[in-house]
């Protein structure tokens, strides 16, 4: 394993220390328990948005803390969801009295830890809602399983909900917006190489010289299919068509019912994409793929969307939700409405997403 790290057990802490030193105007870092928060937290009267998850996906989430996006991010160990005490401490630190939205990716670990944190926060009188992101079309079945993973749409939901919070939306409205973003976003990823987890020191999976993994997640977990290397156009077509032609997707998720004061099961359905839809197209590097290649993917994606009558009105291209040093990419398509467009365009000032200010 070759990485610019010291001891693997110091990887996350030292990386956070570097972030803190580099972006002192935007963020602060608490180390024990670990969370990154807006330098000007708590913003009184504003709903606070907190996300978190395993580390190794940088810049997500810590790189998105700041004005117009997240109030706090809880980094777990590499590819391991953070613990309830991190989430609870972060909630206490950034709570501005208007409640907190946890944006949670749909993984067993993340859900269980955030559930525990939610219960703890409520027991301390903090109002908390949480919304699950489950947008990975690589996972087909949902009836008896964990359902779809949360991947690229997470970044978009954090930006859009962060802008809404900044503009004074109340907690329920932001939660509803976040759910809507999730239902309208779909992703699929591919790996050219495996990542290497620092503590493990060897690649998580082995790919031959001419092999790629299709339908990977963001944790170096193997994909659904292994196939021979293809051209960028063929790969893009596979990814894009799987997303665009994905049928409506139904699943049951647990959400907190504030009135009843309990968890309730809610059935949610992703609508399918339709001709005339306005899209945000997000082409993401898994960490080791340079931007020149992402543009080649974007070129083909734009062509396919045009053929399908889908109109790309916004885009995001770069390494935003990564798997350490993995080479590969993911595509996320989000169907936008006018409110989402307005919120996407709103100013944001974080270490890794910045515009309008």
């Amino acid at each position, binding site marked *: 394993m070759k990485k610019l790290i010291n001891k693997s057990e110091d990887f996350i802490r030292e990386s956070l220390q570097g972030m803190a030193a580099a972006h002192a105007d935007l963020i602060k870092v608490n180390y024990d328990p670990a969370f990154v928060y807006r330098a000007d937290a708590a913003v009184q009267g504003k709903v606070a948005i907190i996300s978190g998850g395993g580390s190794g996906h940088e810049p997500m989430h810590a790189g998105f803390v700041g004005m117009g996006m997240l109030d706090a991010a809880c980094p777990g160990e590499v590819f391991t969801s953070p613990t*309830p005490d991190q989430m609870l401490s972060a909630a206490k630190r950034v709570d501005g009295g208007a409640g907190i939205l946890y944006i949670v990716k749909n993984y067993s670990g993340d859900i269980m830890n955030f559930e525990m944190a939610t219960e703890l926060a409520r027991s301390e009188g903090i109002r908390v809602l949480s919304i699950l992101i489950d947008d990975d079309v690589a996972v087909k079945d949902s009836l008896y399983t*964990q359902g779809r993973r949360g991947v690229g749409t997470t970044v978009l939901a954090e930006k859009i909900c962060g802008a809404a919070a900044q503009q004074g939306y109340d907690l329920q409205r932001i939660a509803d917006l976040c759910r809507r973003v999730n239902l309208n976003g779909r992703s699929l990823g591919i790996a050219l190489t495996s990542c290497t987890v620092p503590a493990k020191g060897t690649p998580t999976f082995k790919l031959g010289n001419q092999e790629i993994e299709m339908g990977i997640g963001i944790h170096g977990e193997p994909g659904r299919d292994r196939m021979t290397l293809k051209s960028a156009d063929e790969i893009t077509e596979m990814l894009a068509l799987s997303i665009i032609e994905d049928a409506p997707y139904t699943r049951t998720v647990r959400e907190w019912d504030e009135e009843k004061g309990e968890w309730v099961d809610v059935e949610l359905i992703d609508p399918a994409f339709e001709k005339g839809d306005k899209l945000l197209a997000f082409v993401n590097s898994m960490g080791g793929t340079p931007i020149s290649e992402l543009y080649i993917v974007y070129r083909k994606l734009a062509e396919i969307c045009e053929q399908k009558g889908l109109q790309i009105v916004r885009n995001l291209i770069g390494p935003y939700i990564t798997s350490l040093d993995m080479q590969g990419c993911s595509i996320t398509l989000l169907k936008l409405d006018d409110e989402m467009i307005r919120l996407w365009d709103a100013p944001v000032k974080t270490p890794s997403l910045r515009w309008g200010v």
Partner: protein
Amino acid sequence: MVTKQQILQWLQTFATEIEQNKDYLTELDAAIGDADHGINMDRGFKKAIAQLPTVADKDIGSILKTVSMTLISSIGGASGPLYGTLFLRASTAVAGKQELNEQDMLGLLQAGLDGVLGRGKAQLGDKTMLDALSPAVTAFGQAVGEGNSTLEAMQRAVAAGEQGMKDTTPMLAKKGRASYLGERSVGHQDPGATSSYLMLKSLLTVLESFS
């Protein structure tokens, strides 16, 4: 009677067992998960063991509760809440006790199992740690019902747990990360079931060494 001393030694033995099987558990997780189960468990149990001296003079419930809290705040992932809840519920079941008879032990194990069920909402056959834990607890209860000692019951529990662990190999995963793999999850032993088997085996090892 299982003494506090034996409980402490169980925790210690399990931690050592995890350390020795850290790479093995991680490799199992690499095949169908994200290659961190051994790393996660080792991190959590190292921390938990470090806390033991501070509570060694308390009752068994308090000891298990401390373990639980340390696991919850230091593991994360799926195994943190699951093992954390297992020990939390177990601690409540034996709160205040300094030693445990057969029924206490059954209560401890059953409460732990229920904790995992409630937290993870998996079902038997979903290819998770439940598939090792559940048959083990059932076997333990049956053995106790038939009038066996804790040691004898534990021998049957470990055998059942081992079989349960092995039975996860042909299963199609429905919970946890392995579920994303669909058909490709078949043919691999579940890492969580494996660590759960090690937990049961560690307890048996301690009981046997004291008998």
